[in-house]
């Protein structure tokens, strides 16, 4: 059976992803197994863009010509035993989560986008709200099957193959050896999804995680799982000022609470929610926000018993009051319906931003949301919030700030009203990137670089460092075919 077909107009949706970039392609395939992927790569010389469920925000799955290798039919769960699941890379997170729940298990990082596929999550080292406690997906991946661009297959398990210093050797299933040395650049010490992951004596599985499909096609994963916590509770606290909210985040991090998630909503986010709730019937189900509060922090805790949970909640209540909040105006979620209710509230902010942009695009078709994905070290949290706030107010732009404040990783969403504001926002974004990199932060903490943020990666790494990344790519993908245009400019995309 011929796995490769000519690309037809009926499949035009597959030229886009959530970044709203659009590309073009000559052919497409929908493999069902690792062997199919190997055969496809052996039978074409075209450049190949790997595609999962296209939920990425950085254009990684958008093809710039050549072949689309779409893995969405690789959705099998191959085994589940000893708290380890072995699955194909096209499996959706939502389907995995549903399956695991029946066995009382879960995959801890919990990315917000539930329709993302596992392969894509591994390729960009995805994170979620619970990354604060459990880290990104990287440490939970304990095995990968990767097909190289020449069709060779590598099966690699965590803890089995390490670099010796910076020297490494990878061995494919057929016995082919790939030996060389790793680059020696420093990675930022924050939540990070930008650039190839490199460390002295590193576990070589980590080279593929976060490589955004530039080194090989991830076709299967083995993931380590945890038993679902016996008790999950979430508190949404409101504060009169941003400073009070930041103080609460700071004191919670310094306490022994070890929250699973700490998420932030700024004044503009809350105001936008209040307005939409009042004027748009689609948002009537939002909880009514308490008045005279201008920032909110969502904190989720996982406990092994009710006693432990109640002790943590009592401690959180004290911290809220210490920071100027009021536990009478603090929402608590304990039951599944409470969580459904809160989930709706948490997802409403980005949804309303997208709706607003869609409305404005009718007049200015070139507009898109300008969403940042930068993170800084703990000691720069107050500074980075101050930086955003000062610049945005000075520029008189419309914006909201929300997101993973526990990891010092908030998303600034600039909502331009016209083309001039769009350009102004882009310029600010570049300025902030420079400052954040100088503070030891990252330009992308969870979305990846894709095609959209190549210029930002250049701020984090020197030209020599980037050339070193490209050297590793050439070593594993000698014909420069895989995901060309992602991460760095190389081959035809240069």
């Amino acid at each position, binding site marked *: 059976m011929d796995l490769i077909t000519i690309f037809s107009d009926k499949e035009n949706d597959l030229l886009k992803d959530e970044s709203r970039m659009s590309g073009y392609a000559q052919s497409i395939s929908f493999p069902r197994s690792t062997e199919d992927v190997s055969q496809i790569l052996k039978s074409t010389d075209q450049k190949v863009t790997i595609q999962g469920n296209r939920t990425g925000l950085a254009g990684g799955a958008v093809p710039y010509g050549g072949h689309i290798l779409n893995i969405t039919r690789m959705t099998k769960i191959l085994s589940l035993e000893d708290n380890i699941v072995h699955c194909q890379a096209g499996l959706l997170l939502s389907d995995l989560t549903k399956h695991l729940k029946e066995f009382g298990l879960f995959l801890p990082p919990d990315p917000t986008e539930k329709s993302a596929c596992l392969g894509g999550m591994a390729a960009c080292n995805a994170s979620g709200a619970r990354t604060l406690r459990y880290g990104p997906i990287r440490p939970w991946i304990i095995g990968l099957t990767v097909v190289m661009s020449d069709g060779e297959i590598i099966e690699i398990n965590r803890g089995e193959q390490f670099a010796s210093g910076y020297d490494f050797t990878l061995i494919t299933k057929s016995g082919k050896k790939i030996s060389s040395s790793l680059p020696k650049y420093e990675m930022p010490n924050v939540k990070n999804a930008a650039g190839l992951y490199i460390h002295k004596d590193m576990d070589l599985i980590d080279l593929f995680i976060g490589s955004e499909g530039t080194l090989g096609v991830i076709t299967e994963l083995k993931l380590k799982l945890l038993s679902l916590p016996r008790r999950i509770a979430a508190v949404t606290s409101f504060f009169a000022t941003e400073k009070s909210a930041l103080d609460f985040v700071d004191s919670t991090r310094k306490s022994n609470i070890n929250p699973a998630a700490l998420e932030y909503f700024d004044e503009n986010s809350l105001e936008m929610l209040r307005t939409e709730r009042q004027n748009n019937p689609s948002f009537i189900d939002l909880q009514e926000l308490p008045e005279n509060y201008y920032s909110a922090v969502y904190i989720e805790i996982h406990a092994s018993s009710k006693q432990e949970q*109640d002790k943590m909640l*009592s401690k959180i209540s004290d911290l*809220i009051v210490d920071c100027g909040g009021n*536990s*009478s105006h603090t929402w*608590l979620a304990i039951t599944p*319906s409470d969580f459904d209710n809160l989930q709706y509230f948490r997802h409403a902010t980005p949804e309303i931003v997208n709706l607003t942009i869609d409305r404005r695009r009718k007049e200015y078709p070139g507009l898109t949301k300008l969403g940042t994905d930068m993170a800084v070290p703990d000691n720069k949290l107050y500074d980075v919030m101050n930086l955003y706030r000062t610049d945005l107010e000075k520029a008189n732009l419309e914006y909201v700030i929300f997101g993973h404040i526990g990891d010092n990783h908030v998303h600034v969403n600039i909502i331009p009203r016209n083309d001039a504001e769009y350009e102004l926002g882009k310029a600010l974004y570049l300025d902030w990137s420079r400052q954040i990199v100088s503070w030891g932060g990252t330009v992308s903490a969870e979305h990846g670089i894709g095609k959209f943020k190549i210029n930002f990666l250049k701020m984090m790494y020197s030209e020599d460092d980037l050339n070193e990344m490209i050297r590793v790519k050439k070593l594993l993908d000698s014909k420069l075919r895989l995901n060309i245009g992602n991460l760095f400019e190389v081959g035809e995309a240069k």
Partner: protein
Amino acid sequence: MKIVVCIKAVPASTEVRLNPETNTLIRSGIENIINPFDNYALDLALRIKEKHGAHITVISMGIPDAKDIIHHVYSLGADKAILLTDRLLAGADTLATSYSLASAIKTLEYDLILCGKQSTDGDTAQVGPEMAEILDIPHLTYISKIKMTEDPQYIISHRRTTEKTQFIYTRLPAVLTVVKGDTLPQLPTLKSYLNTLNNEVEILTTKNLELDDERIGLSGSPTQVVKVFTPKVHKDKTIIEGTASEKASQLIKLLNLGGLQK
């Protein structure tokens, strides 16, 4: 106003599965929740309390394990929570349940009794109206909202059906079965949760009530479940092609032939 709200602990609905051999519900390892429609009923009571003042008693009939779930109503603002639990009540159908609950409610003071429209496990929607008959008071179903009137004996009930909303002048005491209102139920506050941690759920057993033994539990239940089964899902499909009118006439033909029901 004295309000009694009836709630039931049910399996989280999306997880209910049937054992294919015994055709009984698989309950092991499944989380129980307050029946979502009962949450709407409780939320309606809480909003009345917030606006006009009220005393809210929540009552549930179920197994002793339901106590934790029932306790949650304190953090939402209920004044008293009662669990009616006894081995003699096990296996009750809707009629026996209505009789047992109504007997317990008779021992309470009430102006208004609120229930969810139906439970998500049994889906019968019978307990509310049956209780009203046993208590010999009026009942209304599908209520989404109520408004007070100047006369404390009457309220205006908003009865929401798929086609319209009826505004019904309702004499109290009455039983109302409740659907979702304009908004989702309010969340508890952290303070109310922490302040009510030590509140007790009152336990009632058959010993506390005057009950006719022949009307309770399995032996007092006239309903006989002959068979419970999972309907077979047919995946046959017929694709109709052509212009819109060709497709429409082809569809009518197929429907007449029962062609889609194979």
